[in-house]
């Protein structure tokens, strides 16, 4: 499930500050102190305001499938930086790093998404 990151080897073609552009408090749902990285397959895309969501299916250590709810900023801000509704599609393999949910163990606030070709979308200074 967890994926080791290779920041130096990843081409950062699209840059954005994912949650830095929030318009409501992420502190209510997410912790700033804890992050997690998960790899899996996109099973649903929700590219609408107020926040994009990618549901991904991740294989847990016991072999069972886990469904993760990963959340980004608003499409209005993403498309201006080149991240459109077609950038990540159902069936894509992705690795996502983000702030962990406070209560829901399978909830992430996206900091970056790494696509199958190594492209990383999100913050580059993390």
């Amino acid at each position, binding site marked *: 499930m967890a994926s080791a990151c290779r920041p130096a080897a990843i081409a950062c073609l699209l840059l954005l*500050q994912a*949650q*830095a*552009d*929030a*318009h*409501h*408090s*992420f*502190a*209510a*749902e997410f912790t*700033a*102190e804890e992050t997690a990285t998960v790899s899996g397959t996109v099973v649903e895309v*929700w590219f*609408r*305001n*107020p*926040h994009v*969501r990618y549901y991904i299916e991740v294989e847990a250590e016991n072999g069972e499938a886990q469904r993760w*709810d990963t959340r980004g*900023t*608003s499409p*209005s*801000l993403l*498309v*201006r930086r080149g991240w459109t509704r077609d950038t990540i599609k159902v069936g894509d393999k992705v690795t996502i790093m983000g*702030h962990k949910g*406070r*209560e*829901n163990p399978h909830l992430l*606030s996206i900091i970056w998404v790494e696509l199958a070709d190594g492209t990383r979308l999100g913050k580059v200074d993390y």
Partner: protein
Amino acid sequence: MRTRLSRRGLFVSLALFPLAGAANDALVGDWMLELTGKGPRLVGQLTLGRQGDTWVAHVEGGPAEVRVDGDNLDVRIDSRDLAGFVFYRRLSGRYADGKLSGTFTIEGATEDPEPGGQWTGVRKLPDRAPEPPRPVDVSGIWTPAPGVDFRKYTMDLTDKAQAWFEGYLMHYDQPNVRCVSPGIVAMVAWGAYPFEILADDGRLTFIYEVESEVRRIFLDGREPPEYYPTSPMGYSTGYWDGSALVVETELLEANVRDFRGEPVSDGARMHERYSLSDDGRRLSAVITLLDPENYRVPPVRRREWVRDPATVILPYECDPDSFYRQMYDEGKLDMYFERSERRLIE
């Protein structure tokens, strides 16, 4: 779900420290702070006072912890980052030659950790007399510039406001997560979205990308009709004080002020003062909420934007389905609807 940071008692709403060493009366009063370093420049007002044997500090209208020891002082200011994570800026410095100066550090985890730096404080100048109008061209598209605003987190709430706030659930009660307008008081201070100003004779029209809200600011002195309802955007009139645009907003509907969920009452007013840089490329604003029913000291926000003719204002269609679906998935839908009345601010 409720973040621990909003619980009463964890954060000291008004921190008072005994006078230590020789009390320096020269510190009492209003100071304009400027924080500089590797991060964006910040500006804000610090008010220092004394209540008996204790020092009291407010920054941008909100309480801050303060220690004074002779000419030395230490101020700890709670702030939120753009994602809503709460952290502190600790200013340590001293008073000399009629000014304050020192260094500041950051305490706490944030989405975008800030570096520390230096800070200065100079006496706030008294308000000057109004000047004859000298209108300037503020029309165009403006995108947010980083910095300037402290994003002070807690404010000095009245007992009534504090009692209401105690029951606020930061995520579930925030209007815009379910695609309901958060209102102009919150929107005007948010960070990420551009807005456009259209100028006509006697009127300015502000078009905000976020929530696709439109705001008319009448410059011809007209009053709202008697039947004009309260609303999240209120009713705005403006005038030119020299080259500064002053906007007064009334008829606001009860709402919340910012991420923390502090209330804005029916009857609140908002005062904004916009200034254009000499080269016309930068617009700045000081925004003051006047709501004595909820705030003992008026909250202040500051913003800057840069003129950006290359930007377009995008449509902002909002669909609350994912908000309700998350609650459904997490078994919280009943909880949400059982407290619907709670989201009506009296």
